[in-house]
């Protein structure tokens, strides 16, 4: 017990809880809500509200509308081409080769438009997932200094490896299984519609949903493990602080009780710093993911609507390609949300577990 108390005191004295450490995290850039990580920390320290709800709604609306407008022109070309093809196909052709060639040329152009949109969104998705995992990996050491200062060294030591391992595993799972499956499914859906006789659309769907199942299963297991460990760790925290207080008041003859009070004050201050850094991290992850997800959701909406409208007059194969594109984009959105939610859960578990609770 004495050893633990001495260790805690050494950690408390030697841990440099430097306020400017978090400035390093500004390299992750500005979220589209208009703040960096250090802005979030500063405004929380000052007690200002960094994000105002009445300013957010117009921004969300603006982003959704601008993304719809950008994609509307691409979709209008798809519309025009499918309409042209529909008009062309209504006249009876004895020359079947011509009809097939016309369909294939139009189909290849539509595929090109869809593929370039898919490429942009998949790159956005991959970079978002990588950035979120990297951000978590960078924020945890900074959070660690604050947690160690608030008598949570034991919690941090037992929880942070799990969180780092699982978050990296999640990111790698999405990168090495999820995204390739999405690419494969996208390719299959394009090839499957080339011929009216052989359809690979359902195979594409199966591959996509299997990848989604694997990733969401991993995220669920991760959240469960982290939450259970967090629950068991919070008592460790209180025990460490209590033992430190007991040792100091017992071992130091005259100033013991005074020092106990100051330990409480330092630990309480470190809790505030830790909570601010952690909450700023959660806020940063949330807002850096929110706007891209809204962008992708509006693209999905556009493709779903256009698929439904083209279905009324156009070729079934074009409708099926647009539908599959919407499905593939939904899978990418699912991956982004799964990754960011697991990062937010791990940060909040770390914060919750390292709170002093009844120790003070």
């Amino acid at each position, binding site marked *: 017990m004495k050893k633990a108390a001495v260790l805690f005191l050494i950690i408390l004295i030697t841990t440099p809880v430097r306020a400017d450490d978090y400035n390093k995290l500004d390299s992750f850039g500005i979220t589209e809500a208009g703040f960096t990580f250090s802005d979030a920390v500063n405004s929380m320290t000052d007690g200002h509200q960094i994000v105002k709800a009445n300013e957010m709604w117009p921004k969300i609306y603006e982003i959704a509308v601008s993304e719809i407008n950008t994609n509307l022109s691409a979709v209008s*070309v798809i519309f025009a081409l499918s309409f*042209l093809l529909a008009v062309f196909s209504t006249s009876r052709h*004895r020359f079947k080769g011509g009809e097939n060639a016309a369909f294939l*040329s139009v189909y290849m152009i539509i595929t090109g438009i869809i*593929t370039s949109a898919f490429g942009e969104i998949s790159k956005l998705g*991959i970079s978002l997932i990588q950035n979120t995992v990297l951000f978590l990996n960078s924020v945890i050491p900074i959070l660690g200094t604050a947690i160690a200062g608030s008598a949570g060294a034991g919690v941090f030591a037992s929880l942070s490896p799990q969180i780092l391992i699982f978050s990296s595993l999640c990111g790698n799972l999405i990168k090495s299984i999820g995204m390739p499956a999405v690419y494969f499914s996208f390719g299959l859906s394009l090839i499957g519609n080339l011929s009216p006789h052989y359809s690979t659309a359902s195979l594409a769907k199966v591959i996509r949903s299997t990848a989604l199942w694997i990733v969401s299963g991993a995220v669920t297991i991760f959240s469960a493990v982290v939450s259970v460990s967090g629950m068991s760790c919070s008592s460790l925290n209180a025990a460490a602080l209590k033992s430190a207080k007991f040792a100091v008041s017992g071992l130091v003859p005259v100033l013991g009780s005074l020092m106990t009070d100051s330990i409480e004050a330092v630990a309480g201050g470190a809790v505030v710093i830790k909570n601010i850094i952690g909450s700023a991290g959660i806020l940063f992850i949330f807002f850096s993911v929110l706007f891209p997800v809204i962008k992708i959701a509006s693209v999905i909406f556009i493709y779903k609507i256009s698929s439904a409208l083209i279905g009324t007059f156009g070729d079934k194969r074009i409708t099926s390609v647009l539908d599959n594109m919407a499905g593939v984009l939904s899978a990418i959105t699912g991956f982004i949300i799964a990754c960011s939610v697991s990062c937010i859960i791990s940060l909040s578990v770390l914060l919750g577990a390292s709170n002093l609770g009844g120790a003070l």
Partner: protein
Amino acid sequence: MDIFKIVVFALPSCLLCILLRQYRPDYSFAVSIVSGIIILLYALPALSNVFKSIDSFVRKANVNTVYIKTAVKIMGLSYITQFSSEMCRDAGENALASCIEVCGKIIMLALSLPIAEALFKLTEGIIP
């Protein structure tokens, strides 16, 4: 309306063809070819309006207009191939008709290859 012009021109030429077929079948064939070409030419101004509006969409969407033009060319080529091969069949030249069809297919293949090439390049570009 353009369709009335087309009908006013097409019906008398049809009558002329029927009349001529009894006395000079070769003349009847020539009349049918010429009137067919003139009727197709009537559609060109209306078609150019359609293409102008498609062109404006395409420019907004940053899609290369060459590919859209190629697709439209393939559709046009298909119509022309069908028209000429059926003319040949009407004249009893089945071999010539199938030659025209094969030729049309080869030209369509040649036209559509650049689109396929561009698609392959694009696909190559998106793979991380």
